[in-house]
């Protein structure tokens, strides 16, 4: 058998459609011809690659598209349950949930800004002009609150910075800032929050003593205001501190 004949019969040989005589002749040739064995290997590889490949799945919508283009009907002949199942496929279900969530959020936001109470609605609540007016008013209130918080924080930061600077200026004979003491009386410790105390300097011998005391009073006033939501005038704190030089710090506790 020649190489050409082997080439022509190779597929038939692999498909096992050759007659016994031809098959024997071809196998004899293969036993002595490496080139034809290589050829047969190529065909084997090709056939196995094709036959092991799983068929590909067209997209779900292809059939629906064709149906629409041919009979003009989508989901023709399907029961309503089947149509619902198709419609509620996972991808759509996810989108639906997102859509509902966003709608609820948007509606809640609108009702919140328009100050509409669903349980006590009146005719005026249905007027879009009322919604706009209320939303405008609420927006301004929110803005004002945000502004107030911002300025409060800025004020606290400025005070802390000032105290820090004062602490630096108090000289090398400073004690540990972790254990601050009342000026002039080391046995009494003000009930100030540790956060503010860190910035306080110990009592200096002279000079900046008054500034330190003022700053301390300022922080104390702020800390009371922040913790108990009571506004205590700075002057009162200073007065109490002045009295506290000789009579004890019980009044601070009363303030808190």
């Amino acid at each position, binding site marked *: 058998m020649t190489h050409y004949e082997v*080439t*022509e019969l*190779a*597929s*038939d040989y692999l498909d096992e459609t050759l007659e016994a005589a031809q098959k024997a002749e071809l196998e004899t040739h293969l036993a002595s011809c490496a080139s034809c064995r290589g*050829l047969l*290997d*190529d*065909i*084997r*590889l*090709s*056939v196995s*690659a*094709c*036959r*092991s*490949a*799983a*068929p*590909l*799945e*067209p*997209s779900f919508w*292809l*059939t629906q*598209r*064709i*149906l629409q*283009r*041919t*009979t003009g*009907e989508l989901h*023709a*002949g399907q029961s309503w349950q089947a149509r619902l199942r198709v419609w509620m496929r996972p991808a759509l279900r996810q989108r639906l949930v997102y859509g509902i969530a966003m709608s609820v959020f948007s509606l809640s936001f609108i009702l919140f800004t328009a100050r509409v109470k669903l349980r006590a609605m009146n005719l005026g609540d249905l007027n879009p002009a009322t919604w706009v007016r209320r939303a405008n008013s609420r927006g301004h209130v929110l803005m004002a609150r945000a502004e107030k918080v911002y300025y409060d924080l800025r004020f606290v930061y400025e005070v802390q910075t000032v105290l820090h600077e004062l602490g630096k200026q108090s000289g090398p004979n400073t004690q540990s800032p972790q254990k601050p003491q009342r000026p002039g009386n080391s046995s009494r410790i003000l009930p100030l929050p540790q956060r503010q105390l860190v910035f306080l300097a110990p009592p200096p011998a002279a000079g900046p003593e008054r500034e330190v005391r003022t700053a301390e009073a300022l922080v104390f006033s702020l800390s009371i205001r922040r913790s108990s939501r009571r506004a205590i005038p700075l002057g009162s704190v200073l007065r109490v501190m002045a009295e506290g030089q000789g009579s004890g710090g019980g009044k601070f506790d009363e303030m808190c």
Partner: protein
Amino acid sequence: VQEDRELVKRCLAGDGLAWESLLKLHTRRIYNLCYRFTGQVAEAEDLTQEVFIKIFRTLGTFDPLQGNFVTWLSRVARNHLVDHYRRTSRDRVTASLDDEEAGITPADPAESASPIARIEARERQELLQAGLMRLSPDMREAVILRDLQGLDYVEIAAVLKVPVGTVKSRINRGRMELGRVLKRIMKIGGVE
């Protein structure tokens, strides 16, 4: 075969359900034929749609005495593919190994298959497609019809309207060429 004939009869009588059943039975086959021929998912879907529109319009010309429905369907699809190939041959760019084909979905992927197995299956599909795209259209369609669509030589001869001997020769040469191409691609890609 009998089922197809019954469905065709009902379709011709105006039964929409029968058309939908026929469509569902054969969409995957035609889509695979189109995809293997073009190598493009979107193009294959468009071609599949066009083929079925053609089938819908010419269903009355199907003669069960001249062959089974699958052969007739494959012939219509193949003729449409050849027309499309000729129409677009000027614009076509030779496929390369770098062609990215997104959206290849093997049918009925086993839920239990590991991610690695899935990736390997996908790579095998891409490798095969790259190899097929390097064959001449004559050899490609013969190999697709025989080894991917599972038609026998006589059916392929009926689809291609060529003698059985020619079919055998094209399949034989196509397989040899595809094997060589696959080997070369695997060698370049370092696939074992």
